[in-house]
């Protein structure tokens, strides 16, 4: 352990916004991921949380080069992924897999489970003869807790939890090192959610996998992750071991997020002091200047927060935070205050000030 498997260095993914009279011009960018750096150790589970639209999925995809990062580097097991092209990249893909949120739409409706699973093996020449493959498939299915009769069926014949298992099996089929699970349980009923979470944990043990789990449900993330990164508007605002994060959130946003998660226990709920954020997530096409969070931050301080973008800095061992005043807030030197909500128009794509 503690040998990095992946390291992400200042990755940026900007989606161009195009518009034009006859030919399209780029008039601005959606700053979906805007300078994220993190490392994932071999064998650990790294959790990524944040509100909808903050760029979690895009980061995950950028890491696998499923979207082309605009900047930065992703180093996987010593190889710089951004330098890979064509066949080399394709071969590399075997080692890093993805599990998706929507279990149905991520499975090709026209393919049987068998061909879904075999496809990846074939792409990487892992299918060695009929029998061998058959055996592998059965092992795979039993690993994810599906009967071997499932092979001949089609995705729509399964329940949501079972579909998610198929998705996981597909990722496992190529014997990857890293699995990026993008909201693997969000679409599932609570009871089934637990089954899948347990399955992921079991598989990690069994195959020695490394996970990047993306979710917006803090409780789930905290439950399965060793380390958690909190994203806000394209950037990582805090990163810490899962227990530390809960015990002592340093970033105002994390604090608010944690306090907003309802807990199924009236005793806790009644006693709880909430930090209610006002307003909505700003548009990633026109992110606020300075600290991205300053428009909603109850601890915001004049000038600095509005103008200077805080970098992620290590405060305690392994606890990194991107806030100018993290220590002051922790120590109670700065008190929270009222925040006037800023209106956010969701569909309006504004031209970012720095886009020219």
């Amino acid at each position, binding site marked *: 352990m503690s040998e990095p498997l992946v390291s992400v260095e200042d990755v940026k993914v900007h989606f161009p916004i195009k518009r034009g009279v006859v030919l399209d011009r780029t008039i601005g960018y959606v700053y979906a991921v805007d300078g994220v750096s993190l490392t994932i150790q071999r064998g650990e589970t790294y959790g990524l949380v944040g509100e909808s639209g903050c760029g979690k999925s895009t980061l995950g995809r950028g890491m*696998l080069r*499923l979207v082309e990062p605009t900047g930065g580097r992703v180093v996987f097991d010593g190889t710089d992924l951004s330098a890979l092209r064509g066949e080399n990249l394709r071969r590399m*893909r075997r080692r890093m*897999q*993805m599990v998706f949120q929507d279990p149905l*739409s991520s*499975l090709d409706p026209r393919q049987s489970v068998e061909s879904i699973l075999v496809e990846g093996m074939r*792409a990487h020449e892992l299918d060695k003869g009929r029998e061998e493959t058959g055996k592998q498939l059965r092992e795979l299915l039993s690993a994810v807790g599906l009967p071997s009769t499932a092979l001949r069926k089609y995705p729509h014949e399964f329940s949501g939890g079972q579909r998610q298992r198929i998705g996981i099996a*597909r990722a496992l089929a190529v014997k990857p090192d890293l699995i990026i699970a993008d909201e693997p349980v969000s679409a599932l009923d609570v009871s089934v959610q637990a089954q899948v979470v347990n399955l992921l944990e079991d598989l990690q043990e069994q195959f020695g996998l490394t996970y990047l789990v993306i979710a917006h449900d803090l409780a789930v993330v905290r439950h399965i992750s060793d380390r958690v990164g909190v994203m806000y508007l394209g950037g990582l605002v805090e990163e810490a071991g899962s227990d530390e994060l809960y015990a002592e959130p340093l970033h105002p946003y994390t604090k608010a997020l944690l306090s907003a998660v309802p807990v199924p226990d009236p005793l806790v709920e009644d006693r709880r002091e909430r930090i209610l954020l006002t307003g909505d997530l700003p548009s990633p096409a026109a992110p606020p200047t300075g600290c991205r969070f300053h428009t909603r931050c109850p601890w915001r301080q004049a000038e600095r927060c509005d103008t200077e973008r805080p970098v992620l800095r290590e405060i305690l061992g392994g606890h990194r935070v991107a806030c100018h005043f993290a220590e002051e807030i922790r120590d109670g030197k700065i008190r929270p205050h009222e925040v006037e909500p800023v209106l956010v128009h969701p569909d309006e794509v504004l031209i970012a000030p720095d886009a020219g």
Partner: protein
Amino acid sequence: MTITSRKARIDKLAENGDAGVSLVASAWRRLRRSPVFLVGAAIIVAFVLIALLSPLLAPHDPSATLLLDQVSKAQNKIPDPQPGYPLGGDDQGRDFLSRLLIGSQQTLMVGVLATLFGLAGGLVLGTLAGALSGWVDTVVMRIVDVMLSIPSILLAVSIAALFVHPNQYTVIVAVAIVQIPVFARLLRGSMLAQRASDHVLAARALGVKPGAIVFRHMLPNSLSPVIVQATIVLATSIIDAAALSFLGLGNPDDSVPEWGSMLGRSQGLLDSHPELSFWPACCIIVVALGFTLCGESLRDALDPKNRR
């Protein structure tokens, strides 16, 4: 800005179909219970059977002027129904029933070939645009836009008029070309939707080769709106071909009978010999109705809204 034109409608169809494929079986189950579909399918099956078997069914050679001696322009006489000729003859003394029966072949051919050509062209262009994107996409779609900016019948008429040697194939080509941009746009729309879909992303993540992704994942899943459109095109191409004949741009040689031209040519005799127009018109209407019914019910069946 939503572009709410024919293009947009095509795109919309593409979206709908995207989600519709997954339950082909259940769509089929719904189809089988739909009376609309059954009527349509029955018509089509009957029509295809007639077309295939017509050489056996037709009592006479459709181009032989067997009853020519009963024809007289001067007295406006055409052969009446008589033993062996249940529907009588046409204005050249050819057996009308045989012409109607054999005419189904040509009509089927027009419908099927025009649709196939249109489909093939659309598939090629749409796949190119949808799979390659970038400048290929831009170029292809600009061409498609130009074609779509002329009303379809007009385009068909223009194309048909441009052939030096009009014959049955030029009609097919004219009707088919008009369909190409429709199919292309439709397919590109679905392909783009597929490209963005999670299962294609998953395949890419698995390292499946790009060709395999296009042909195994994107294309098959993009086809259902195209198939619906194809059924409807079958109907419209038959009607369009008839319209071309009517405008005098069809196959001028009627030794090979075809309903559209039979109808077009007999309009002048409508009051003295209405049956000469009536039968081909009926045939066209019924067959077009058959395809339309099938297409409509197929569209309904594949509509994700109707899925439970």
